Structures are given as structure tokens and as C-alpha cells.
């Protein structure tokens, strides 16, 4: 009953970037042993180099420079390398690179310089890339764990310090708790459809819907639990409680990377499982996917609570934590919009565009927080920003660009993301949630503007240290935010031919 898969099935070439990076990470694991403590920058260099190679590969594969049959599957249909996978690879590799750049001096300064940091980042990136291309529930689960466990360690990286430990423990406990929900969900889905491979599930769902079999309740329950597990990862509201504490406790360079990577992984999973796996899961008497209303309500809840609570925050990292919750809400709108069959592709593209735009802005914002942070990891309160425009005009200008992009002011990538998400929502007739989205982004204007107002209108003496790697990271993020804002063509072109292999 078990035969050895032929080499053609394996087709490792399709998943080159992922496999390359995974091997690289393991090699660096070994190589790092031989690098003395004071020359840890070599590991950083190697990690960055590895990611750069993977990025170049991903770009080439996206551009069909390397000939391979599109939508090709590897590892006997466990992994699929379609355009969406490449886009996810590009986004997460860029975030990884920025994460390394940002962490380079920070670790030195706050005396937590250890080689493990870099290849833990590599492992997380591999996890996200794997999730991007998951074509089977098993791979989804494994990728999720591969993505989460290094993050638990990373958030506890400054372990002698209480906060960091506490945030790691919280993150770990709740992470494990939530992933067990996911597993149980997968089990039930498997129970209902009889297979764990997503195309298989897709056909099974067609039959279930056609015969209106009893197993549809099992399927509903399973997808609900899977939604809980992934909702936690993406920090949607009912499961968001961990985010503020973990973001505040963990070292800022980790948070910078984690806030984007975890989201990209979470949303890739949601798209693979819900949108690719069960788009046709339509109960009788309805036109849209069964799970659309739930996702839609969770999105609304996330936006409302994320934005409103952010207003009362007085600590910068906590404020950015709630803002990242709010932005998860905006992306969830697009995921909900994907429920309507006709709008699925447009909605998925909107998710990817938003993630790309969000990556640059958020990493940039946290990079500025790192620049402000003192060596003993304090001074991240809101008034650490007061009067920055006088002491360090360039940094203040960069922070303003990030804040405007998070608010969604035009000519910044944030606006482009919101434009596409709201457009997808409107074409899927989700008008109420679009209105909530618009109103909450008005609310968000208030607390983002407060940061700008503290920097420019008030005067205080806030000084910031920007060594060259951090400065270049901020430079790249600002360039990315403005470039994507000025020329959204890049984004729309990149995501233009994302079609879920077996959708429609």
C-alpha cells in the first residue's frame, strides 16, 4: 500500500527557494559553532546572504525566468509552487532581510548578541515559505509549528530579563493551546472529507455540497476550529490578548520581524485552507461560502477594538501592537471578500498587496522605535518621540511617512493596500464592513497623528542612534512605502496572475 514516490513526483526543483533556505539554516547552525562570540556579524552576514539568494531565486521563479510548469507540485502534491507561493516568498524574505539588518546593531547594543538569533529567523522564514506553498493540511500544520516555535524562543531571547521571559511563556502557552485547536480542526476536516490534500478536499466538498451529506456539520465544525487556530496566529480580536504583552516584552528587533512574518504565515494558511480548500463550501439556499460571515464579523470586531483601544495607549510598542491587530482586521476583510466565488481571485490579490505594503511600513516603524530605544531596552514611551523633528529631522520624516502609510493617506503603500481591500469588499457587496473599515481608519488617524504631532509640534529632547545597518533598513522601508505608494503598478503587476490552482 505504500510505494516509493518517483523522482518526477518529488520534483524538488519546484520548491527550490524553500529547500535551499532550510538546508542553509541547518548548515549555518553548524557553522555558527565555529564563529567566536565577538565575530557574530559573520553569521548575520551569512544569514542575510542566504536569504538574498533565496529572494533572487523566488524573484526569478516568479518571473518565469526559470522554466517550470506553472502550478507545479513537489513532494507528490504536498507542496505547490504557484504565483501565490512566490509572492509569499518574496514578502517574507524581504521582511527577513530587514529583520536581520534591524537586529544587527541592536543585539550588540543590548548585549544579547548570540548566533542562534539569525538562524532562528531563517527557520521562521522557512516556515512561512512552506506555509505559502502548502498544498496539504499536514504541511499546513507542520509549517505553522515550524513558524511558531522559533518565535517563542526569539521572544524570550533576552531571557535574564523578566518581561522577555514572561512574554515568551505567554506566547508559548497560548500558541500551543491554539495550535491544538487547529489540529483538532484538521482532524475533523479529514473526517468529513477523507483526505488531507487540499485538491482532494476541494472535490470532496463538491460532493458533500451536491449530496448535502451529514458530514457537512463535521466540515463546518472543522473549518471553525481551523479558523480559531489560524485566527490566533494572525491576532484576530477574540484571540488577540497575547499580542500587546508579547510585543512589549519581546526584544524590539524580534517584534519588528515577528509582527509581519507571523501575519504573512497566518494569512497564507487562511487562504490555502479556506479560500483554496473550501471556496465551494456553500450551504443550500446561500450564494457565498459558509465561513464568509464568520470571517466578516471577526474582521469587523478586530478593526473596531484594535483601533479604539490603541487611542488610549501611552507606550509606543503597545500602540503599534494594537495597530497591527487593527491591520489584521483590514486584511481579514479581504479574506471575507474571498468568500464570494466571483471575487475570490481579486480578494486574494488584495490580501497579498496589503501584506507587501504592510511589511515595509511596519518593519520601518519598529526600526524607528529601535533607533529611539536606549541600551537597557527602556524609553519606548510615547514621549520618547517628543521633539524628534528638531533633533533628528530625517528620522522624524521617516516616522511620519510610516504613520501616514498606516493611516492610509494616499501616495503611501498603506493607502494602496486599503484601496484594494475596500474595492474587493465592495465588489463582494460587503458594504457594512467596508464602512466600518473606513470609519475605523478615521479613528486610527487620531492616534497615528498624535505621534506626528508629538514629533513636530511639541518640543522636547529625544535623541536616537541610527547605525548604518538600521539606517539602511529604515531607508529601504521608507523607499518601499513611498515607491509602492507612488507607483502601485509594481504591486498590482506582481500579484496580477495569482489564481488559486483548483479554484473556480
Amino acid at each position, binding site marked *: 500500500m505504500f510505494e516509493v514516490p518517483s523522482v518526477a513526483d518529488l520534483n524538488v526543483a519546484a520548491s527550490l527557494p524553500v529547500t535551499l533556505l532550510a538546508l542553509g539554516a541547518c548548515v549555518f547552525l553548524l557553522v555558527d559553532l565555529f564563529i567566536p562570540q565577538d565575530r557574530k556579524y559573520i553569521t548575520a552576514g551569512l544569514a542575510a546572504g542566504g536569504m538574498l539568494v533565496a529572494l533572487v531565486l523566488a524573484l526569478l521563479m516568479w518571473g518565469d525566468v526559470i522554466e517550470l510548469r506553472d502550478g507545479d507540485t513537489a513532494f507528490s502534491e504536498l507542496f505547490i509552487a504557484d504565483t501565490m507561493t512566490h509572492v509569499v516568498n518574496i514578502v517574507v524574505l524581504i521582511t527577513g532581510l530587514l529583520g536581520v539588518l534591524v537586529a544587527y546593531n541592536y543585539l550588540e547594543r543590548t548585549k544579547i548578541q548570540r548566533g542562534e538569533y539569525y538562524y532562528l529567523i531563517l527557520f521562521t522564514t522557512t516556515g512561512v515559505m512552506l506555509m505559502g506553498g502548502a498544498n496539504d493540511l499536514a504541511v499546513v500544520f507542520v509549517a505553522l509549528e515550524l513558524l511558531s516555535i522559533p518565535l517563542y524562543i526569539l521572544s524570550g531571547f533576552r531571557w535574564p530579563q*523578566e518581561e522577555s521571559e514572561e512574554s515568551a*511563556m505567554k506566547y508559548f502557552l497560548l500558541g500551543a493551546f491554539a495550535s491544538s485547536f487547529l489540529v*483538532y480542526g484538521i*482532524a475533523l476536516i*479529514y473526517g468529513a472529507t477523507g483526505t488531507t490534500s487540499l485538491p482532494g478536499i476541494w472535490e470532496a466538498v463538491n460532493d458533500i455540497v451536491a449530496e448535502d451529506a451529514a458530514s457537512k456539520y463535521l466540515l463546518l465544525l472543522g473549518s471553525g476550529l481551523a479558523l480559531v487556530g489560524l485566527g490566533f496566529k494572525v491576532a484576530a480580536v477574540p484571540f488577540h490578548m497575547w499580542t*500587546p504583552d508579547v510585543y512589549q516584552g519581546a526584544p524590539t528587533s524580534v517584534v519588528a520581524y515577528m509582527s509581519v512574518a507571523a501575519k504573512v504565515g497566518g494569512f497564507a494558511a487562511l487562504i490555502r485552507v479556506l479560500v483554496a480548500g473550501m471556496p465551494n463550501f456553500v450551504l443550500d439556499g446561500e450564494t457565498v461560502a459558509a465561513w464568509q460571515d464568520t470571517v466578516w464579523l471577526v474582521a469587523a470586531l478586530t478593526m473596531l477594538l484594535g483601533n479604539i483601544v490603541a487611542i488610549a495607549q501611552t507606550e509606543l510598542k503597545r500602540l503599534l501592537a494594537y495597530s497591527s491587530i487593527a491591520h489584521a482586521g483590514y486584511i481579514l476583510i479581504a479574506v471575507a471578500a474571498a468568500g464570494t466565488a466571483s471575487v475570490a481571485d481579486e480578494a486574494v490579490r488584495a490580501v497579498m498587496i496589503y501584506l507587501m505594503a504592510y511589511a515595509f511600513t511596519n518593519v520601518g516603524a519598529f526600526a524607528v522605535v529601535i533607533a529611539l530605544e536606549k541600551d537597557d531596552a527602556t524609553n519606548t514611551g510615547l514621549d520618547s518621540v517628543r521633539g524628534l523633528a528638531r533633533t533628528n529631522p530625517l528620522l522624524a520624516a521617516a516616522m511620519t511617512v510610516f504613520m501616514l502609510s498606516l493611516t492610509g493617506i494616499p501616495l503611501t503603500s498603506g493607502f494602496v493596500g486599503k484601496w484594494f481591500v475596500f474595492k474587493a469588499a465592495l465588489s463582494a457587496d460587503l458594504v457594512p464592513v467596508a464602512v466600518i473599515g473606513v470609519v475605523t481608519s478615521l479613528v486610527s488617524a487620531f492616534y497615528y497623528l498624535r505621534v506626528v504631532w508629538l514629533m513636530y509640534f511639541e518640543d522636547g529632547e529625544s535623541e536616537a542612534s541610527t547605525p548604518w545597518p538600521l539606517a539602511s533598513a529604515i531607508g529601504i522601508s521608507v523607499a518601499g512605502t513611498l515607491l509602492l505608494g507612488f507607483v502601485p503598478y509594481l504591486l498590482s503587476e506582481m500579484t496580477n496572475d495569482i489564481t488559486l490552482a483548483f479554484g473556480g
Partner: protein
Amino acid sequence: MESSEVAIELYVVLSAILFIMGALGVLLRRNAILIFMSVELMLNAANLALAAFARQWGNGDGQVLVFFVMTVAAAEVAVGLALIVAIFRTKHSIDIDELHKFSG
């Protein structure tokens, strides 16, 4: 073949009960290690369900998944215990109620 087998629903109900027991365990216990055990319990409940469905559907996917889950659970616990040791060294207690530094 069916008559002598135990009905699939029983397995699912059992795994559901186990799952809920695990969840309550996580909520009520104050000792970190016991919380870990409850999480393991929940994962194993899922394994049970998977094995039962695999038998019912007659294909190997479920069993493959069980092994995945078990290995991952092991890795998870390893990391978890390392964390507990670290916290114990600083706080000299693994009661998770001490961990409430953040607020608001």
C-alpha cells in the same frame, strides 16, 4: 466487517471529551508543567480522532498525520520545558500567576 467494529461516532465523542478535558486543564491548572500535559492531552485527542477517521476512510492519510502531530508535540514540549527551566531559574517558581507584569 462493520458489525464487530466499534462505531466511529463513539471514537469522535471520546476524542471530543478528551479535547474538552485538556482545554479545561489548561484553564484551571496553575502549574506550568501540568498545563503542558493538558495541551498534550488535547493533541492526543486529535490523534485519536485522526486514527479513527483513517480507519473509517480506509486510507493512510490520517495515520501519517498522527505521526506528524506526535513529532511536533515532542519538539514543542522540549522548547516549553526549556522555557520553564529558564523561568524557574529567575523566579524560583513555575506558578504562571507570577507572570503578570504587563497591563492596559
